[in-house]
């Protein structure tokens, strides 16, 4: 028998009113503004933009405020908003070689043309709590230096010149789009990269780390990591030519991996690639390592059965909004489902006990 249950409206309203109060926190402390979140919690904003898959810092900051700092909830809010927007087109692929770099480092070539630029990094800090930050927000001006205009070509291009690096195959101008069609397996690399770019940072970090520890090991060097602003160009049909329609901050990581050669490929270096909205190098490096692990088949490598090589496993579980939606739904009322489970268990127990009693009589 199915009995529809209603009720709880009053409780839900009261819960949401309390949520709003808790979000505000103690009223004798100044309220956090969206501009403060955008300006001072920039890396949180970046993560929400990357995994929300929508570049808009104001919206991401608002989502973080509304979600009380719960990043996955904020990402969920951005994904939901994103679906309300009409799509006006797609940009030309961004030219990351022309990036205005805040940071640009290479772990493989010390004397890279364009130099090694550290940017505003946590690296080389001592990871000691800075109690001055709790006292006041005064900071001295960062040093500035005259800018020498010089190109910062991709470091990979130097290996390319020597033919030591596996060339990147071209692909269709219109790549498949996860947001328009369900995930189709086996996926192309373009589809995998889209999925990884919006994937959960923690999930990718864990998978990437597993490849370093030996699950489908392919020793990666960071050939280049760059963070900076890229112009976004799009062809405008009304105009008949392309214009810059905006700019995005991106983190790009290119790894170079040793490769002994396989049945189909000569010994050479191979590539892994990470590209992420905002400043997020942990995610970009993780993405590059997982991208490389997933390329085993096209490079003729062995499938070692490692999780990071399993395209279906990686792509099906990388999206935190999907994952949390399914995970958290089990806390919602399942009264009827559970009622039937209860009936079943009682019946099985009755039968088992009856059998036991029967055996005792026979013994």
């Amino acid at each position, binding site marked *: 028998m199915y009995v529809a249950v209603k009720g709880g409206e009053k409780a839900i309203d009261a819960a949401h009113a309390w949520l709003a109060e808790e979000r505000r926190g103690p009223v004798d402390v100044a309220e956090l503004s969206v501009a403060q979140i955008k300006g001072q919690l920039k890396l949180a904003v970046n993560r929400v933009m*990357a995994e929300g*898959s*929508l*570049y*808009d810092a104001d*919206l991401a900051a608002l989502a973080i405020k509304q979600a009380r700092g719960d990043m996955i909830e904020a990402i969920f809010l951005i994904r939901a908003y*994103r679906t309300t*927007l*009409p*799509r*006006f*087109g*797609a940009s030309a*692929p*961004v030219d990351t*070689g022309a990036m*205005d*770099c*805040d*940071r640009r480092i290479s772990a493989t070539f010390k004397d890279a043309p364009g*130099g*090694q*630029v*550290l*940017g*505003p990094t946590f690296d080389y800090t001592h990871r000691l709590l800075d109690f001055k930050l709790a006292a006041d927000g005064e900071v001295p001006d*960062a040093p*500035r*230096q*005259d*800018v020498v205009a010089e190109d910062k070509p991709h470091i*990979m291009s130097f290996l390319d010149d020597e033919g030591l690096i596996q060339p*990147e195959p071209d692909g*269709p101008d219109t*790549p*498949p*789009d*996860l*947001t328009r069609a369900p995930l189709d397996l086996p996926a*192309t*690399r*373009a*589809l995998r990269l889209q999925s990884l*770019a919006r994937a959960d940072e923690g999930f990718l970090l864990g998978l990437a780390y597993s490849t370093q520890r030996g699950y489908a090991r392919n020793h990666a060097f960071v050939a280049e990591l760059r963070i900076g602003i890229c*112009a976004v160009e*799009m062809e*405008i049909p*009304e*105009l008949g030519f*392309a*214009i*810059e*329609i*905006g700019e*995005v901050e991106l983190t*790009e990581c*290119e790894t170079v991996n040793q490769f002994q050669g396989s049945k189909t490929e000569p010994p050479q270096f191979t*590539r892994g690639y990470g*590209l992420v*909205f905002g400043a997020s190098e942990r995610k970009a490096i993780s993405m590059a390592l997982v991208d490389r692990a997933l390329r085993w088949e096209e490079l003729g490598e062995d499938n070692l059965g490692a999780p990071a090589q399993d395209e279906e496993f990686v792509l099906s579980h990388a999206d935190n909004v999907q994952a949390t939606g399914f995970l958290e739904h089990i806390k919602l009322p399942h009264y009827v489902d559970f009622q039937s489970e209860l009936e079943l268990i009682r019946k099985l127990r009755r039968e088992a006990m009856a059998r036991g009693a029967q055996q005792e009589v026979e013994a």
Partner: protein
Amino acid sequence: MDGAFDPNADRKAWLSVLARADSAMVQALWDGTGLAPTHDILRAPEIGAVMVRGRAGAVGAPFNLGEMTFTRASVRLESGLVGHGFVQGRCKDHARIAALVDALMQTDQAAQIEAAVIAHLRKAATARAGARAARAAATKVDFFTVARGED
């Protein structure tokens, strides 16, 4: 295209400057001109998204990276000239003003608009990029080798 004369180069440049500019600054500069040209709205400001693409390995096959917010608007001046605004973000006024500026930049008022709006936006963009570049330059590593005295 390289080296060839691009008849759309000027328009492309001012539209790009308008698209990347700060909405509040665009609005303030436009208000400062005191201009209010009579115009029809061809396309009311409309907020949407554009899919931003990258390339695998920076040089290979294109892939969809994620979307960015984007607003567009189109106007027609009394003279019949059409202007388009295509701007980043969700500010409808920014898109509408960009469309008006685009239209006026095609008239004999171009020099006036260039001086009152576009030049300031371009200067602000250069200053913003320059300030970050100067800080980045200060973090450029100078390597030196420590002599070990082995020979």
